[in-house]
């Protein structure tokens, strides 16, 4: 039973991180129907920025909590800035082009960002400072759940709530929903579509950066390549939940996190990544619209 609980909580951790990344995918897809391949790279850049900032600050002798807050803040700002710039360079000129072109451009951007970090920083795995403090009240349950995991659950929940508020109740959220439904019509009623798209990239990248900081402190090491596989898995989660749907992305991420955790825990850990891909293929064959997605019939 204890093993089960451990796997359950481990799956919840994975799922929460996937959810933070999957949100960016699903928001961008909802608005411009593009799989933003570079999204995983944005998450990696967030983690790297936090590592660099916390490294500099800890050498200056700042207190741990201040370092954590500042590093996370800078990571969010930078990831958002990268997301914004990537959209302006690689996707905006291709709004009217065939979707295949935008997708290839996104792949190119992902390749570029990976190698940019590789060349400017290093190809080695870098140890990540453990910034999140150990909670004393968690001592009795330490063998099943670590305090970083508790922080991950709390942060993810907070981000989800804030995001739901942003989309449901603010003006920009309304504009986002309008643009996702019908871009031309939104433009006609006076929505600044370019601004809405930029905003979507900024919000999506910022949540990915939070995911990057959390997972890096949880696992304890990063390199330039972490974005790729995390990006793919978050994409699987977004598709599983129904791409374009925000609650779907969260649900899909949790389902993927749990299945992966139980699979590796009870069956085999060699084929962990294979399993995620097979899962994706099966969903797309049997329920392409995902758990919460509506299936759309193609109009001619």
């Amino acid at each position, binding site marked *: 039973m204890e093993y089960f609980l451990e796997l359950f909580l481990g799956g919840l951790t994975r799922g929460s991180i996937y959810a933070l990344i999957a949100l960016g995918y699903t928001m961008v897809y909802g608005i411009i129907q593009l799989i933003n391949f570079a999204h995983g790279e944005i998450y990696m850049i967030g983690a790297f920025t936090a590592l660099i900032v916390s490294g500099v600050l800890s*050498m200056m002798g700042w207190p741990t909590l201040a370092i954590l807050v500042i590093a996370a803040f800078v990571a969010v700002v930078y990831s958002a800035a990268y997301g914004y710039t990537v959209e302006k360079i690689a996707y905006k000129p*291709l709004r009217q*082009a065939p979707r295949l072109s935008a997708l290839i451009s996104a792949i190119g951007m*992902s390749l570029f960002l990976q*190698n940019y970090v590789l060349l*400017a920083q290093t190809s080695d795995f870098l140890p990540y400072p453990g910034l999140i403090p150990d909670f004393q009240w968690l001592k009795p349950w330490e063998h099943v759940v670590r305090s970083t995991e508790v922080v991950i659950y709390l942060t993810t929940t907070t981000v989800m709530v804030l995001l739901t508020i942003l989309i449901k109740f603010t003006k920009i959220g309304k504009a986002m929903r309008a643009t996702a439904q019908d871009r031309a019509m939104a433009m006609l009623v006076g929505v600044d579509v370019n601004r809405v798209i930029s905003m979507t990239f900024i919000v999506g990248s910022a949540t990915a950066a939070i995911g990057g900081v959390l997972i890096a402190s949880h696992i304890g090491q990063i390199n330039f390549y972490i974005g790729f596989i995390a990006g*793919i898995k978050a994409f699987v989660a977004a598709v599983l939940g129904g791409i374009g749907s925000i609650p779907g992305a969260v649900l899909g991420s949790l389902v993927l996190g749990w299945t992966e955790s139980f699979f590796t825990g009870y069956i085999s850990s060699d*084929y962990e990544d*294979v399993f995620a891909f097979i899962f994706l293929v099966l969903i797309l064959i049997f329920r392409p619209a995902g758990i919460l997605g509506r299936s759309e019939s193609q109009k001619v």
Partner: protein
Amino acid sequence: MFNREEIKKSFLVSLWFMFLTFPIMVIRVNTIYNRVEWRWDRLLMIGIGSFLLSFVWRYFIKRKEAGIQKADAGDGNETPLVQRILTTPKIYYPSLAVIVALAVAFPFISSMYQTNIMTTALIYVMLGLGINIVVGLAGLLDLGYVAFYAVGAYAYALLNYHYQLSFWIVLPIGAALGALFGILLGFPVLRLRGDYLAIVTLGFGEIIRLVLENWNAFSFGPSGIANIPRPGFFGFKFSLPEVTIYIYFVMLVLVVFTIFVVNRLENSRIGRAWIALREDEVACQAMGIDKTRTKLTAFSLGATWAGMVGVVFAAKTTFINPASFTIWESIIILCVVVLGGMGSILGVILGALVLILLPEYLRAFSEYRMLIFGTMLVLMMVFRPGGIVTNVRRTYKFKAEDAG
């Protein structure tokens, strides 16, 4: 062009990029020795570089927009230069003869090292022509193409290891296995559209690689298979320099064969069906084209060439392991097609030669290779989606006397 407004804009762009690249380019933290390295010179380089590049960027964006307007106004009917060469027999046949003569003479006038590189380039030409069927003609973005290449390479390595089958026997087997795997992949993805298809094929490619890496009993795992024999010629064994030239010619013949078949395919009934499918799936079905069959033939005929060339790759390098077949290999093959021009055979050949030969001769830039490839994919899509040699669609023109 260089008025105050523009300079101000570029200045802001350069400030933005200096801000953006600051932590990753300038600071390097060594957490083990507790040292921080500040590389301020890079910040200056980024500033100046982005200031200048933003002018170039805006110039090309303006040119592109002007081009679109011109095409809308209907002035876009000039035939491109390459197309004119191809359709003028007086220029076309002599230049073809020169190229053939050069290709045949190449291994005798250059070193073994260069012949080897040229063989690699020819391998990519063939891979490019194969993926061109799937991506260029049928419009199905396949990011797992390298899986079929791996199937061919492992087919030769394993069949030779267990049953001592020779190169020439495995070559058609590799092609057949490629086609078979093409169909196996094709079935589940039949219903998927563009971007989903890309992700599933990517997943398929990674599944094959991960299985090869983990299934030690079958594929010898990450350590790979060594001592794969080079091809012979009716039991005759070559020395190393001779076999290099021999493989070069084998590849050359295969490439010519591929060009011939792909060219015939493109203008056949099935080739037209692929192009129709790429342009509009629904309209294509309405015209009575069997979507299932057309997609499956595209996948299997595209994969055939990868399976075949995989056998040659295993025989050439004599050692294979799963690390040669990562997703990035698929993307390099995709780069070949995108740079050359999707759907255009000549373009694919040029694309492969440029992409494989340039990094070999510009060794100083070798670590920037993938960075440049990524940049190239973005820039090509933004500014010249048709590639170096844009494929010209077959059009019918009415002349004044015909009409009257």
